[in-house]
C-alpha cells in the first residue's frame, strides 16, 4: 500500500474547515478528528476499490543479444486476470546499466485484457544485463491510496563487445589480398606456398623463373606464390588484474577484445584457423574450431561475460594451455600488459617455452597519456611527471627488449591504434611466411 500526492493534498485541505468552524480549541479538535476520519475512510474505500496488482500476469519478449552502443526494445505483456479495471503505473526493474532510462509506464488494463509496455534499452556496459521483477502500482478510483505488488518476471540480455575496430577490416583485407598471387620477390620464406605458374612479364624477379616449366613451353614461365594457408593462430587474452586498468577511458581488456576480434576476422578471411582463449588462473572463455561467421559470433558471445579478475595471471600454466589447443607450430598472440620489469617476470619466464615451438607476438596497450606527459615540461610538477612518464616508458622499452631477446615480437600502441597495429603485424608475418 502506498499513498499518493493527492491524499497528502486532501489531508492538508483539512486546514480550511478547521479554521472556518473551529473557533475554540474543543470544536477545532473535533473538526480535526472528523476530517481525519473522513480522509481515512475515503482512503480505505479507495484502496478497497483498487484493482489487485497480484492478478496481473507478465510475459516478456526480449532479443537474446545486443551489441554495446546499440538499442533494443524490451517488450512486456501485462494481462489483467482480475475482475476490476487496473489503472496504474508499472516499473520494469532493469539493472541501471541496461540503459532503460525512465522505466515507469502508465497503463490502463480493463479486466481480462492485455497491454504491451515496451522500453528501449541502450545498455552502456558489456556483459549480461538482467531484470528480475516488475512492480505494479494500482490506483484506486479516487487516486488516494495505491495497491502495489512486485511480480517475478526474470529476463536477461547479453551485451556483446562493440567491435569498433571492424572499420579497419576492409583495408586490411585488401592488403591481405595483395599478398595473394604476388610473385615472391624478397619476402620468399620457408613457409610460403607454391601457387601456380604464369608467363613472365617485365618486372618480375628473374629469380622466380621456373626453368623446367620454361623448357616445357616456349614462353618464360615464373612461379607465383600465395600466402600460406591453414596455419594456426592462438589468441591468448590475459584477464588478470592488470587488464582492469583503464587507458583512454577503456579497460585494457576491452582493447584486447577489439584487437583479438579484428585479428580473428582477418585471420578467418586469410584462411587460417583461430583459437581464442581468455585466461588468468582459470579459463574464462574459449573458442575452438569455429570458422567464418560462427567464429566471430562465438567469440563476442564468450567475451561478453568476461570481466577483469582481480587476481594475478598464472603464466606458468600458459604453455600447457597453448599445448592443449595445438601441438603444431602456431602464431601465439598474447594480449597482456607490458609494464615494469617486476610485473612482467612471469611472462618473461614462460616465453622461451612458447618461442621454442611457436611464433609469439606480445601485444600491449601503451598509455598515450604517458607519452604526452613525457613531452610536457611546463613547470616543476610537470617536469616530475615527465620524469615519471619517461621512467615508465623506459620500463616498457626494457621489458620489450627482453621479450625480443627471448625471440618473441612486441606490439605496443595506444588503445585506438592497437587493433590495426596487431593486424598489420599479422599481415607482415604472413607475408614473410613466418606463420
Amino acid at each position, binding site marked *: 500500500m502506498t499513498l499518493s500526492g493527492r491524499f497528502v493534498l486532501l489531508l492538508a485541505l483539512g486546514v480550511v474547515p478547521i479554521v472556518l468552524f473551529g473557533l475554540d480549541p474543543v470544536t477545532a479538535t473535533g473538526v480535526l478528528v472528523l476530517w481525519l476520519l473522513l480522509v481515512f475512510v475515503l482512503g480505505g474505500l479507495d484502496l478497497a476499490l483498487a484493482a489487485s496488482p497480484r492478478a496481473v500476469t507478465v510475459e516478456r519478449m526480449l532479443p537474446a543479444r545486443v551489441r554495446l552502443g546499440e538499442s533494443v526494445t524490451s517488450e512486456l505483456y501485462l494481462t489483467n486476470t482480475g475482475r476490476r479495471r487496473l489503472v496504474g503505473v508499472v516499473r520494469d526493474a532493469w539493472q541501471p546499466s541496461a540503459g532503460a532510462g525512465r522505466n515507469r509506464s502508465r497503463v490502463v488494463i480493463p479486466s481480462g485484457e492485455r497491454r504491451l509496455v515496451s522500453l528501449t534499452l541502450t545498455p552502456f556496459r558489456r556483459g549480461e544485463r538482467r531484470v528480475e521483477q516488475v512492480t505494479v502500482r494500482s490506483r484506486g478510483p479516487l487516486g488516494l491510496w495505491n495497491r502495489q505488488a512486485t511480480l517475478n518476471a526474470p529476463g536477461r540480455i547479453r551485451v556483446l563487445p562493440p567491435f569498433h575496430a571492424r572499420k579497419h577490416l576492409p583495408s586490411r583485407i585488401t592488403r591481405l589480398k595483395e599478398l595473394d598471387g604476388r610473385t615472391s620477390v624478397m619476402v620468399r620464406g620457408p613457409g610460403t606456398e607454391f601457387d601456380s605458374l604464369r608467363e613472365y612479364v617485365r618486372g618480375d624477379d628473374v629469380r622466380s623463373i621456373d626453368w623446367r616449366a620454361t623448357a616445357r613451353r616456349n614462353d618464360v614461365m615464373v612461379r607465383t606464390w600465395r600466402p600460406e594457408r591453414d596455419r594456426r593462430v592462438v589468441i591468448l587474452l590475459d584477464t588478470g588484474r592488470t587488464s582492469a586498468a583503464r587507458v583512454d577511458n577503456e579497460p585494457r581488456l576491452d582493447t584486447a577484445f577489439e584487437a583479438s576480434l579484428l585479428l580473428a576476422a582477418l585471420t578467418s578471411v586469410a584462411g587460417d584457423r583461430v583459437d581464442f582463449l581468455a585466461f588468468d588462473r582459470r579459463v574464462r572463455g574459449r573458442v575452438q574450431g569455429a570458422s567464418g561467421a560462427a567464429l566471430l559470433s562465438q567469440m563476442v558471445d564468450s567475451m561478453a561475460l568476461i570481466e577483469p579478475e582481480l587476481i594475478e595471471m598464472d603464466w606458468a600454466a600458459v604453455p600447457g594451455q597453448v599445448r592443449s589447443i595445438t601441438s603444431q607450430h602456431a602464431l601465439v598472440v598474447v594480449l597482456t600488459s607490458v609494464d615494469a620489469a617486476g610485473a612482467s617476470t612471469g611472462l618473461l619466464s614462460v616465453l622461451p617455452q612458447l618461442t621454442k615451438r611457436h611464433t609469439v607476438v606480445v601485444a600491449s596497450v601503451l598509455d598515450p597519456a*604517458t607519452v604526452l606527459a613525457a613531452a610536457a615540461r611546463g613547470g616543476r610538477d610537470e617536469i616530475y611527471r615527465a620524469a615519471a612518464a619517461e621512467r615508465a616508458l623506459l620500463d*616498457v622499452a626494457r621489458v620489450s627488449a627482453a621479450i625480443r631477446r627471448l625471440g618473441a615480437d612486441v606490439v605496443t600502441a595506444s588503445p585506438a591504434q592497437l587493433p590495426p597495429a596487431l593486424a598489420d603485424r599479422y599481415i607482415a608475418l604472413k607475408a614473410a611466411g613466418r606463420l
Partner: protein
Amino acid sequence: MSATLGSQTDAPAHVGGAAAGAVGGTTVATPTLRALLARSSFWVIAAACILAVAIVAVLVSGGSQAAGRALAGDNVAPTGSMALVEVLRQQGVTVTLASSLAEVRAAVGTDSTVFLYDENSYLDQTQLSELGDLAAHTVVVAPDFLTLQALAPTVGFGGVSESDILAADCSVPAANRAEALSPGGDTLSIPSGSAHPLLTGCFASGTTTFSLVQVQNDTTGGIISLVPDARLFNNENIADYGNAALALGLLGPSDSLVWYLPTLADLPRTGPPSLAELTPGWVTPVLVLLMLVAVAAAIWRAARFGPLVAENLPVTVKASETMEGRARLYARSNARLRALDALRVGAVQRLALAVGLGRLAHLEEVIGSVAHFTGRAPDEVRRVLVGAIPESDAQLMALSDALQALEHATGQAVRPGSAPAARASTSVSGELPPPPAERMDP
C-alpha cells in the same frame, strides 16, 4: 508478435497461448498482508506481551502517581494523604478536594472543616485572612510565617522538637484521644505564661513549644488548629502513635471537609494576556494536522516502487595512477637528480636513434655524434646529457629545457637537406619532437 501497443481483447487463456515462450501464472514477490502477519507473528506477540507486562507492572506499582503532591487527598504515595481521606469518607464525612480558594468558597458550608496545606506559599495575606473566617474549624498543616501572621500573629516558630515523647497534656479532646504523636517534628511556640486566653497548646516539647496549637478566632469564634509537622498526616506516618486519632479528631467532627491544597490558580493575575490566550482556538489542531501532513508526505515520497536492483560494478583503475604516484613521490622528496636521470636516459635513447646509432650505442658515441650534428661543443653536450647536477628546481627546469632544445636541434640537424653543424644552436621555437607513439621494431 507485433510491437504495436495493441489492445487485444482475448480471454486470458488465449493470451497465454499467443505469446511464444510465455510463462503462465506469474509469481508474486510481495508477501500478502496475511503472510506478512504470519511471518512476523512472533514479534507481534512478543511486543504485545511486553506491553501487557509493562502495563500490569505500572498498575501494580502505582508508579504513575508516585510523584503526586504531598498530602494530596488522591495521592497513594507515602507522602500523600489518601489513607486519611478514605478513612474519613468511610466514616461518612463528605470530603471535597479543592485546588483554589474559589472552590473552597463554593464548597464550604456552615458546619464545614477546612484543611489547608500551602506547601509553596501561594496564598497571600488577604486570602489567608478570608480563609480563616470562612469555616467554623480550620486545620492548617505546616503554617509558614505569612500564615501565622494572618491567622495567629502571636504564635511563633519553635524549632524541631527534641523531646522523645510527645504527650497530649491539654484540654483539646482530639489531642487527648491521640495521647501521643510521632516525635521529632517541627513545633510552634506561644507566648509564655499562658496568659493568652485564645491559645491552647498541646503535645509540649518544652515549656513554650507545642506540636499542636489551637487558636480561637476572636471575631467569628471559629477554631483554627495549627499542626506544624506535615509528616503526621501522610500515608507513611498516619498509623504511627496517635497520629490517626489526632487527624480524625481534628477533621472528623463535622459532616463536610474541604481538603484544600492551594495551586497556581490562587496567584493573582498580573501583566498582559499570555500568548496562549491570544492565539485562536484552531491553531493547535492546525499544527497537529500539518504535522500529520508532513508525515503523510514523507510516506508518499519515501515509498519505494519495488525493491532496489543490485548490480555488480566493474573495478576500474586508471592506468596512469602509478605514473602520477611516482611523479608525486619525486616531487615530495625533491629527487631532482633521479628525475633528471630518467629524462636524460630517455633523451639519450631518442638521440641515439636520431643520429642513427641504435638503442644500444655507447654514451660517448652518442655525445660525439650529437655534437657533430648540432655543432655544439662535446663538453656542452656532455654537461646537458650527463654532467650537470641540478641544485635547485630552477636548475632542474633549465636542464630539462636544455635537453629538449638539444633533441630539437638534433632533429633539425639530421633532417635530410641540412648539413651537419649548419644550424648550430638554433632557437627552440619549432615543434616538439614527435612522441614515440608506436614503439615497434623496424
